């Protein structure tokens, strides 16, 4: 029995990893300029200063790496939140972590702090996300009903969005206002390796913190008392996971802007494949999120002619109806 489960998990991981790999490679071929397989290959193995090499290595590669990392972060954070709150509707966007990060980052833009240090943006994103998640715990408590949780999330999100709107409202430069507005829509267009270097370490730290809680999350699904009796310290677990979510989501959002609903869709699709075990959902959601965001970013490039359609707009267009569908299912008691 255990052996069979392991085999299934292995197949799932391999399948998802292959999917991410395939999408990653596909992404290297998608863009406004058409490049042949040979050109892309040549650019990757022997980079020179030719236009095609610059396009492949300095534009498409960082963009795809960021799509993979941001998607993984959002997928993993979604699965972690759902396990921790034991609620299938929890997601960084819905509970307000993304809006908190967005607020932190837009304040940095607004006050011009980004000019002091390039690190200001990710750090403010993390602080914003952390405050939002901490507030959620204060508002909704630990054993909140799905409805209470979502209402608290809506309250936090709305408040963060209102403050962000205030920053846009009072921005001294029309251009800064435009920048914040567009940045809030979420996009990975024309990001560079600098952005990768800026966000990847923080996302990595967040992943480690979240993944290290996998076993405890599975035990937690047996109930808090059982978990305590099995030696899981709930408070330590909570702090570790919340920190992990805040650090990873904060860094991701500060680079990409808000990309919603990834953390909702991915764990939901993958949950049946891991036997509804929250701990085992983490790793697969990381890969699944990666695949979803790379795919969405490919779609953005294929769909855009003239004015770019933003990545966050695409994921929300898919995600919002999905959220409604989940709510209906929840009301019927089927999840």
């Amino acid at each position, binding site marked *: 029995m255990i052996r069979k489960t392991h085999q299934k998990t292995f197949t799932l991981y391999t399948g998802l990893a292959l999917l991410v790999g395939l999408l990653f490679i596909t992404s290297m071929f998608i863009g406004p300029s058409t490049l042949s397989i040979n050109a892309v290959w040549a650019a990757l193995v022997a980079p020179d200063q030719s236009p095609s090499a610059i*396009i492949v290595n*300095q534009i498409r590669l960082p963009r795809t790496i960021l799509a993979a990392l941001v998607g993984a972060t959002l997928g993993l954070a979604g699965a972690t939140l759902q396990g921790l709150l034991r609620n299938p509707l929890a997601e960084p966007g819905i509970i307000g972590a993304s809006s908190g990060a967005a607020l932190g980052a837009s304040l940095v*833009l607004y006050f011009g702090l980004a000019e002091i240090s390039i690190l200001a943006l990710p750090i403010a994103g993390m602080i914003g996300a952390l405050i939002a998640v901490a507030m959620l715990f204060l508002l909704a408590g630990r054993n909140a009903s799905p409805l209470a949780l979502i209402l608290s999330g809506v309250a936090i999100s709305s408040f963060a969005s209102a403050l962000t709107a205030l920053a846009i409202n009072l921005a001294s430069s029309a*251009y*800064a206002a435009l*920048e914040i507005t567009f940045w809030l829509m979420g996009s990975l267009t*024309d990001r560079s390796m600098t952005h990768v270097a800026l966000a990847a370490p923080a996302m990595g730290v967040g992943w480690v913190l979240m993944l290290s809680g996998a076993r405890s999350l599975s035990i937690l699904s047996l109930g808090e008392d059982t978990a305590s009796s099995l030696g899981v310290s709930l408070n330590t677990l909570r702090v570790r996971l919340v920190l992990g979510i805040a650090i990873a989501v904060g860094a991701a959002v500060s680079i990409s802007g808000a990309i919603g609903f990834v953390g909702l869709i991915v764990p939901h699709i993958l949950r049946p494949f891991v036997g509804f075990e929250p701990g085992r959902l983490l790793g697969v959601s990381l890969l699944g999120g990666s695949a979803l965001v790379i795919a969405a970013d490919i779609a953005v490039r294929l769909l855009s002619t*003239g004015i*770019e359609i933003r990545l966050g707009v695409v994921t929300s267009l898919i995600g919002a109806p999905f959220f409604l569908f989940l709510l209906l299912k929840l009301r019927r008691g089927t999840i």
Partner: protein
Amino acid sequence: MENRGGLAAFVLAIMFFQTIVEKLAIAEEMPQRIVSIHLCADQFTLALANRAQIASLSYLATDESRSYMANAAKGIQLNNGTAEEVVALRPDLVLAGFMSARATIESLQALGYRVLELALSTNFDDIRAQIQLLADILGNPKKGKTLIAKMDQQLETAVTDIYGSRPLAAIYQPMGFTSGRGSLESSILISAGFENLAVRLKMGALGHLPLETLISARPSLLVNWMGDDPHPSLSRAGYAHPVLAKGPWQIAFIPNKLWSCGAWYSALAVKQLAAIRRSLKK
């Protein structure tokens, strides 16, 4: 013969009389308390009206980074463009413009004020027509003619050496925004003797230029007209892609205030760009 002379004198007398009547009519209609609630209208008013005619200008009028006429605007009462403020100023002419709040304009009109809305000029023909229209309405047609002549002279010196192929250039604002057909930016770029990449790519007034497209098209100039904006924004914070700084192009920063309105000073942006074009060819 005598008759003819008499007729000619009569006709001349009538024509003379008519001009006097027209002059009087204009003088009578000449607005005495002009209130502008729009940055572009502020600058036209300063250039075309007598100072005594101006009751108030918009709060942006004295902003050095946005208003070409900031110096001239000093000392004039400023307003934030609300109907309440405008009514309190007892204007006989209100100048608004594109992107002015619709509700403000409508409520002022409903209250019986004469409101003139300036359209956005996107080419130099529009600009000429707008200058003359405003000069007539403000009661100074001569000032309009002088301003147009000055602008045309600057435009002419900018384009004396355009022949054969034009170097390719792109308007490139932070985040990749560009301007194609039907935009003032494009008209300025083309008047300075460049070919506009966004037009070649059949883009409209507002378009988006991904870096990839820029790298494959290899324009010889990127024009940024936000670069001197002193207010904080991402673009100033070094978040721009490193590839931008390493391309085969030169990047020109043309002051923001020369682009914000289609006006006589748009010719100065043309002049600056034409000078850059000449330095490119060497």
